């Protein structure tokens, strides 16, 4: 597999978004995909009158576990070790990659199959393994397509959502020498055949984790394709990489999250397969002889400090906020320049990487609140966006980062002037008189910062006489 080529970065979000808006093929694909996924979700939750009670419960369970995360992590690790799993800890992505590389090195030059995992995308595990001369093969159909294309996923649950069947057909002809076809069934079966060869030879399987149960040391992974089941049962060694926030307290809590996640993500009652794995099988049993679990911090512990940021860790990666976001619907995932796109990406990416290179992301929203309304764990994404915007306007980075945050100087200056004018009656009267004069002269069309601000907004004209003036007249 070739290393990924050029990717847009978060730093150039505005330019990325403009380029995406000019791409009609992309926008057509996005509109069909997000429209279908959001309709399916609506239909699935309409059948479940308990939906809002379930969301409230999930939010409460996540709040409970995050408020005592050290305790639940230790419980999870103790139970998983008792079941025979080997647990590794990594404070950042580089260390997590090194752990996986070391396990791989212990197997010689293993054939590696991988199932879809946002966490391994986050730490760029594939690139790390490829630099070491290994060739991890993504086995989720969508992930495999974008790996062949050398791209990044553009959606949390449907990574190749931005590609048309024609583009995929051409890619398959070029990369795996398959016959040209526009038939989705044939394309999928060509992928099955190619990937089966990798599975049959695989020594190491790498997966993510959806939920980790503290009470029993179990991990649960959901999917539809069966590639996760193959990845976690055919190779001799299985490595599961998970963020520390994936822990839930009780085995019975799985019911709650299994009702919320598939309905939110794909509109299914239940995804096709759930694998609940509690340690490796006993000697002679079916499945890998070794099971490793890598627990990754990578900036998560810092999100625990404040209540507003802590809720970001409740995310169960369903992708519903992407499908319902009017911004994502128009520009897709790549513009965000991060493995986590859309509204949740706009709040998580800065927290993982600092605001220096991501300061535009919190502004990639109209604050309409659709993301909050559809979130199965009730994350208040608009509040998080405002929190991050406030930091940017003050030129401050998040705790744990010390980047030079590119302030929005014009806006900051305008608000300082506004505050100065509003805090004295005399200055207020003078400013209001100035504004009325501005309206009369049509100055708002001339001044460049105001004109830029006005490009997408209506500026209401100031009344020709103020309320104070009218009141004074009435009193007379």
């Amino acid at each position: 597999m070739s290393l990924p080529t050029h990717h847009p970065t978060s730093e150039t979000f505005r330019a990325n978004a403009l380029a995406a808006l000019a791409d009609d093929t992309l926008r057509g694909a996005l509109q069909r995909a997000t429209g279908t996924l959001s309709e399916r979700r609506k239909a699935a939750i309409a059948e479940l009158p308990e939906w809002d009670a379930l969301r409230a419960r999930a939010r409460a369970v996540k709040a409970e576990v995050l408020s005592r995360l050290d305790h639940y992590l230790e419980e999870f690790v103790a139970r998983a070790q008792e079941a025979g799993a080997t647990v590794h800890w990594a404070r950042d992505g580089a260390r997590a990659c090194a752990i996986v590389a070391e396990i791989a090195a212990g197997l010689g030059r293993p054939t590696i199959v991988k199932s879809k995992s946002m966490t391994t995308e986050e730490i760029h595990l594939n690139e790390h393994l490829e630099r070491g001369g290994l060739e991890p093969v993504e086995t989720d159909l969508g992930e495999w397509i974008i790996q062949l294309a050398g791209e990044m996923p553009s959606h949390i649950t449907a990574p190749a959502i931005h590609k048309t069947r024609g583009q995929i057909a051409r890619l398959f002809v070029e990369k795996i020498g398959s016959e040209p076809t526009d038939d989705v069934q044939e394309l999928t079966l060509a992928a099955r055949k190619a990937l089966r060869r990798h599975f049959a030879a695989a020594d190491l399987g790498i997966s993510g984790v959806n939920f980790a149960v503290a009470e029993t040391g179990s991990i649960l992974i959901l999917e539809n394709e069966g590639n996760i089941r193959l990845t976690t049962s055919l190779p001799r060694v299985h490595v599961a990489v998970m963020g520390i926030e994936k822990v839930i307290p009780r085995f019975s809590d799985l019911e709650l999250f299994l009702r919320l996640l598939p309905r939110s993500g794909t509109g299914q009652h239940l995804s096709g397969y759930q694998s609940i794995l509690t340690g490796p099988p006993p000697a002679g049993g079916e499945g890998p002889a070794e099971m490793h679990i890598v627990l990754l911090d990578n900036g998560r512990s810092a999100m625990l400090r404040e209540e507003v940021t802590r809720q970001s860790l409740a995310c169960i990666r369903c992708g519903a906020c992407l499908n319902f976001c009017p911004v994502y619907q128009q520009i897709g995932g790549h513009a965000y320049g991060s493995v986590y796109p859309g509204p949740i990406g706009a709040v998580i990416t800065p927290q993982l990487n600092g605001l220096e290179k991501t300061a535009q992301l919190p502004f990639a929203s109209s604050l309409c609140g659709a993301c909050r309304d559809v979130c199965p764990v009730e994350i208040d994404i608009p509040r998080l966006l405002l929190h991050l915007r406030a930091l940017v306007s003050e030129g401050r980075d998040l705790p744990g980062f010390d980047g030079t945050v590119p302030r929005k100087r014009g806006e900051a200056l305008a608000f300082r002037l506004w505050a100065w004018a509003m805090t004295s009656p005399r200055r207020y009267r003078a400013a209001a008189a100035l504004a009325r004069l501005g309206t009369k002269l049509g100055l708002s069309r001339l001044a460049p910062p105001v004109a830029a601000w006005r490009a997408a907004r209506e500026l209401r004209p100031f009344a020709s006489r103020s309320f104070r003036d009218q009141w004074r007249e009435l009193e007379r």
Partner: protein
Amino acid sequence: MSERDAVLAAVRRNLAGVEPPEPGVAPEVRIPGTATPTERLARFRAQLASVGGRVEVARDARVAAALLRDIVAEKGARTVAVSDAALARELAAGLDGVDGVAVACDAERAFLLEADLGLSCAQWGIAETGTLVLESERERNRLVSLVPPVHVAVLQAGAILATLGDALAAVRRPEHGAPSRAVTFITGPSRTGDIELTLVVGVHGPKELVVIVIDPEESER
């Protein structure tokens, strides 16, 4: 400082002064399930059909073996991989002497990878979603239910539970509460929508799923 200590210390430092939320803010939500065995079977069948699976009902193992023969013939399967469960072996024995069909119980991986049809039991069913539940400690079922293009599962009608919650409770072993090393939930055939959200079955796992439900009261229903 070890990585473990470093991560836990960072978690504790950032949680200093954070109180757990009041318990009982949002109580557990109980979702009611179907009440009677007849309703559960009907619901299981309808839900499985809605995701492209099929249910056949047999009143005993002899009828189930005949159904299996029919399915093998219908699919044109030449090689059948069977789990190590007694009931699966009993049904597979009915394939003995069928011309041109090779059967292997608890087969080697090479046979499994080439098999046309896999036969296993399912320890539980979930009516609410049409789901099969497989426990690794009761049967070697992981690969036989996954690798071949057709999966036939045998399920006792009495093992069809009402809800997801009932199934999660059922897979915990009474002695210590832990589940089997591998518990697999299966709802329909392997599927993907990764190309233009177009549904295609059989992407990695079985393209077809047939569940033979053994229901002693079948003739009365």
